């Protein structure tokens, strides 16, 4: 008997509708690409409606459904089903619904829906557009699988399928060798990280015997199990929960492009731009951060006192802060409009990880949700720009697009300011603000806070650099840029409006979304005095100053730059190092790929000499043995045979001579025989006598 079947139905709708669209459109030919697109959009629309309904449920009192009252403890539903049943052990597939699921599911569904609609315009002329929509559907279905999962097994399954879809979509234009290589790189880097995740799952199963997150007190995120995990030592002073959390974080870091595993993300720009929008906003990279947020109790297990932090959380903090700053630095040295956005994504993911690491998973989730919306807007904007400039992606070859693409410019500007965190008016400000607040109060160190603050300054700087170079000044384009069709502009407008509206729900005076996610929305009150809170003011003023400083300095430098790069002469070799992405890729290629290839050559040589050699040797031995036998046969066996045969022949001849048929000789033999017989009888008689 399933409890709350209507909630289960709605929850399953999130992945199953896109999955159904995938399964149906898989069989359609390219000629029917419009049907594929319709199926994809329809499936996603249904999923979005279901997500909205689920989101509605956790509003208290729930107007749509008569469910039990939602207190902080009870507003979590889960359904566990058996997938693999062995004699003595079983592996479940399980689904989880709580406000975090609902909010994340809604964001993923909405952003995906808008990206799908945008693709209708962007991919209209592509010869494989039908397949494109097919893959997109599977992509969001897999991502929703991660979102609604209540078992690490289902998370891993969906997680790998997300990886598969990103592989297929990054390599969608596979005729380009660069795209094929980028897809492979993305899959391999994330799969390397996934091995950490996989081992974490194996260890969890070995240690606890379950992979369920929540299971009526027996799940791995519930107190009993966490106490058990955190009181067992894995090795050294590292507890079991710490070790498993670190392994799982490796997987999350790979998916979410944390330093130094970020290398796949900029290359992933080889895919069509709507794919980039999905990967960067809603589906792929969000999965890593979401997983760490979801498993926060595991990461936080065994925290001794509130002024301390666990090992995995410290690692998350430092990795996040480093990534935030590192990627922001690299973004300054890029000219490709999408690559700049790619590095900005990496940097923002670093912010999110930082938030989770310093113990504020909800702040991280808020930034993830807001970022999903405005990053999708930015990528669609970039897509619109590229579409308008006939495929040009270098911002040095754009310029003046403000006049030729006014709508795109306006919408892109909203995205830029949201990402840069323009104070008060744009949502990036509020979500980043709560991250700064949490990082500032981290007991162990202030360095991550300072790193993140500097990264925030750089964020404003590189976004305005990009915006000013591409949109202002005079046109340097060889083509004639044109505005995009409404089917592309309208989804962007939706996203822009969403990011502006979201602003209202994030202020400290009325932190509606935060209270919603923390399941205490019933105690929400409008409280304007929160603005005057000195704790809030101290971080808010600093970050506002940094952001404005970044914006103004970038405007001063780039508004009159006319496509040249003033920093390259100013910073010299440092800037060229940034342009070359600090040679991280080269490092990996040299150290890992080359050594793996060298090792495999070595092994292959050993294989052919030793192991295949042994077969040849055995075959040779057998042949030599056969030759020896042949020799023996010829010269010994045959020789004897010949001798015997010869003897027999002679004997036969003599015998034949005897039995020649002559009566006289026969009688002679008969007489001799009789004589012998008589002699024998006589002899016997004599002896007896």
């Amino acid at each position: 008997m399933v409890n709350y079947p209507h909630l289960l139905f709605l929850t399953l709708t999130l992945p199953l509708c896109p999955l159904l669209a995938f399964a149906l459109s898989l069989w359609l030919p390219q000629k029917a690409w419009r049907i594929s697109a319709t199926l994809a959009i329809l499936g996603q629309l249904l999923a979005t409606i279901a997500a909205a309904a689920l989101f509605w449920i956790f509003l208290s009192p729930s107007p749509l459904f008569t469910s039990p009252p939602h207190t902080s403890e009870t507003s979590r539903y889960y359904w566990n089903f058996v997938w693999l049943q062995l004699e003595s052990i079983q592996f479940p597939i399980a689904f989880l619904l709580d406000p975090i699921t609902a909010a994340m599911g809604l964001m993923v569904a909405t952003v995906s829906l808008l990206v799908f609609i945008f693709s209708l315009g962007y991919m209209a002329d592509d010869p494989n557009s039908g397949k494109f929509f097919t893959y997109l559907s599977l992509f969001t279905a897999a991502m929703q699988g991660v979102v609604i999962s209540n078992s690490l097994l289902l998370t891993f399954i969906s997680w790998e399928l997300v990886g598969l879809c990103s592989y297929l979509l990054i390599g969608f234009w596979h005729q380009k060798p660069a795209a094929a290589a980028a897809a492979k790189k993305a899959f391999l880097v994330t799969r390397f990280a996934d091995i950490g995740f996989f081992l974490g799952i194996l260890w969890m199963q070995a240690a606890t015997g379950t992979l369920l997150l929540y299971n009526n007190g027996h799940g791995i995120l519930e107190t009993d199990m966490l106490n058990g995990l955190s009181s067992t030592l894995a090795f050294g002073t590292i507890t079991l929960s710490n070790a498993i959390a670190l392994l799982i974080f490796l997987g999350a870091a790979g998916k979410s492009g944390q330093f130094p595993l970020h290398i796949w993300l900029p290359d992933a720009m080889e895919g069509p731009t709507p794919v980039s929008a999905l990967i960067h906003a809603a589906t792929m990279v969000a999965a890593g951060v979401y997983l760490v947020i979801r498993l926060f109790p595991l990461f936080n297990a065994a925290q001794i006192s509130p002024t301390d932090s666990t090992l995995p959380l410290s690692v998350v903090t430092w990795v996040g802060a480093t990534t935030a700053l590192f990627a922001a630095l690299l973004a300054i040295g890029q000219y490709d409009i999408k690559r700049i956005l790619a590095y900005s994504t990496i940097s923002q993911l670093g912010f999110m990880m930082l938030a989770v690491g310093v113990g504020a998973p909800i702040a991280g989730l808020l930034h993830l949700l807001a970022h999903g919306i405005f990053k999708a807007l930015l990528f669609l904007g970039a897509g619109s720009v590229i579409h308008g400039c006939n495929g040009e992606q270098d911002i040095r070859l754009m310029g003046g697009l403000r006049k030729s693409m006014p709508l795109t410019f306006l919408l892109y500007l909203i995205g830029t300011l949201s990402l840069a965190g323009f104070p008060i008016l744009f949502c990036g400000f509020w979500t980043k603000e709560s991250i700064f607040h949490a990082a500032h109060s981290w007991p162990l160190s202030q360095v991550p806070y300072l790193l993140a603050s500097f990264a925030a300054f750089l964020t404003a700087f590189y976004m305005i650099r990009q915006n000013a170079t591409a949109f202002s000044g005079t046109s340097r384009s060889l083509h004639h840029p044109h505005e995009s069709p409404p089917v592309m502009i309208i989804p962007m407008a939706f996203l822009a409006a969403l990011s502006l509206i979201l602003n209202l729900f994030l202020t400290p005076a009325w932190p509606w979304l935060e209270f919603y996610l923390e399941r205490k929305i019933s105690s929400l009150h409008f409280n304007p005095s929160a603005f005057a809170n000195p704790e809030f003011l101290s971080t808010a003023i600093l970050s506002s100053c940094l952001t404005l400083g970044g914006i103004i300095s970038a405007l001063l430098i780039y508004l009159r730059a006319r496509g040249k790069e003033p920093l390259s002469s100013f910073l010299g070799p440092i800037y060229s190092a940034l342009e070359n992405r600090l040679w991280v890729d080269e490092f990996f290629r040299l150290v890992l790929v080359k050594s793996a290839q060298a090792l495999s050559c070595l092994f292959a040589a050993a294989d052919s000499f030793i192991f295949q050699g042994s077969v040849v040797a055995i075959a040779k031995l057998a042949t030599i043995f056969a030759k020896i036998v042949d020799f023996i046969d010829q010269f010994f066996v045959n020789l004897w045979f010949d001798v015997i045969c010869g003897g027999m022949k002679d004997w036969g001849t003599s015998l034949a001579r005897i039995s020649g048929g002559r009566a006289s000789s026969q009688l002679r033999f008969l007489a001799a025989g009789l004589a012998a017989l008589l002699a024998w009888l006589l002899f016997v008689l004599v002896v007896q006598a």
Partner: protein
Amino acid sequence: MIPFLFSLILVPFLSALGTATVRNITLARTISLVGGFTTLALALRLCAPPPACLDTRGLAYSVFLPWLPQIGIEFSLGIDSLNRLFALLSPFVTLLALLALNPSSSRWLAANLLWLESALLGNFCAQNFGTWFLFYELSLAPAFFLIRSPGDPNASRAALRFFLYTQAGGIAILAGYLAIGLSCGTFSFPELAHTQISETLNQKFAIPWLSNLIFWLVLGGLMIKIPAIPLHGWLPETYSRAPAVAIMILTGVMSKMGLYGILRLLSPVFPRELSQWAGILLWLAVAGAVFAAFVAITQSDLRRAFGYLSINHLAYCLMGIFSFHLLPPGTSDKTADLLYSGVLLLAFNHGISAATLFAILNALEERTAGKHSITDFGGLRSLAPVLSGLGFISIFASLGLPGLNGFPGEFLLFVGVFHVSWPAATLASLALLLGAFFLLNVIQRVFWGPIGKNLQNFPEIRPHELLWAVPAAAAIVVLGIWPQAILNLLRWP
């Protein structure tokens, strides 16, 4: 009425005879296909729950004929939980191979496929060593003829090497088992499982290390058959020379003969020796998995590369078997359950996905006059999307992607191995990454990228190819989503 298992072995054998003797090519092909279908249809009876009346040894459908009763050799067949899956796998893979066979190819090939199927089925169903060995030897002849495609001196040499090497293994097994059977007075597997072989052997011959020697002889012989590193040397040459259709059976079913042999011939008989050596053997298997994955990366010949990938997957199965014997007695049977199910599930699914890989390779070779180097192709995704889609499915199944049939077995197996030895599982997971590296290289250079030279007239999948492609793809997808279908078959009353 002919007993069920008799007919299961006889139908492919008789259709092999028919295929080989009939003059008319169309008729020969019809006979071979009807034979393959009938065998599979018969074998599907094994999916049903076993009959209520099992014999005293717990076997279903058992057949028993005295042969050399003086020394305990008998002709004995029977199904239990261990061989049920394998007896189901061989007809399926053989049928795929028969369907993948080019209609214009010689009937000799089809006849040998069926003959081999018959021998393999006999080997899997045997319940007495005499019967087992009879079919083991019987399988060598058709395998030899399959590999030795006429007119290619290299293939003849490869076939001879294969034969001699495998025969050496066969003799080792025979020698070992003669000592066992003669000292115990029986060659029947169910009876041997209840005797204390090691003690009997060592006492009877008064040589303390004799049981170890015999254990290693039999193990070595079986490892050649799988093949497992370091005794895999026959594989590269054989795989690069034999017709791709023949390799479908070699890798899909014949390799399972070795695995099954370890489970049948060694596990019940030598528990003490196995647990004594399992630590070393486990690491040997791990090293083999990593080694094979590394070697696969450098191979430019796709057949050899997929061969090494096969070695890699079979090494995972061996890891599971040896971990099973590393379990200290009295531990919870959960881990044993995981390992046992994982090994059989992975072996079964590997049979399907590896055979599909070679079927696709066969299709590629037919279209390019026998080319099978990774550099001979490129951009097939643009030329033949359906064929490439099939390639993607089987490649990702081999890679262990969740949702396809490679994953469930691998997952269960790794959970079990991790229970027993986490360093072994960790190192082996490196092989998972290397395998992915190799397989993605194949996709990048064969299916993606610019269209290769001389490939402009590369035909898309043909209707008759759908005959094997659809069942193979369906099995890969369905068993990936619903592995319980196979897990249920592992249950035995």
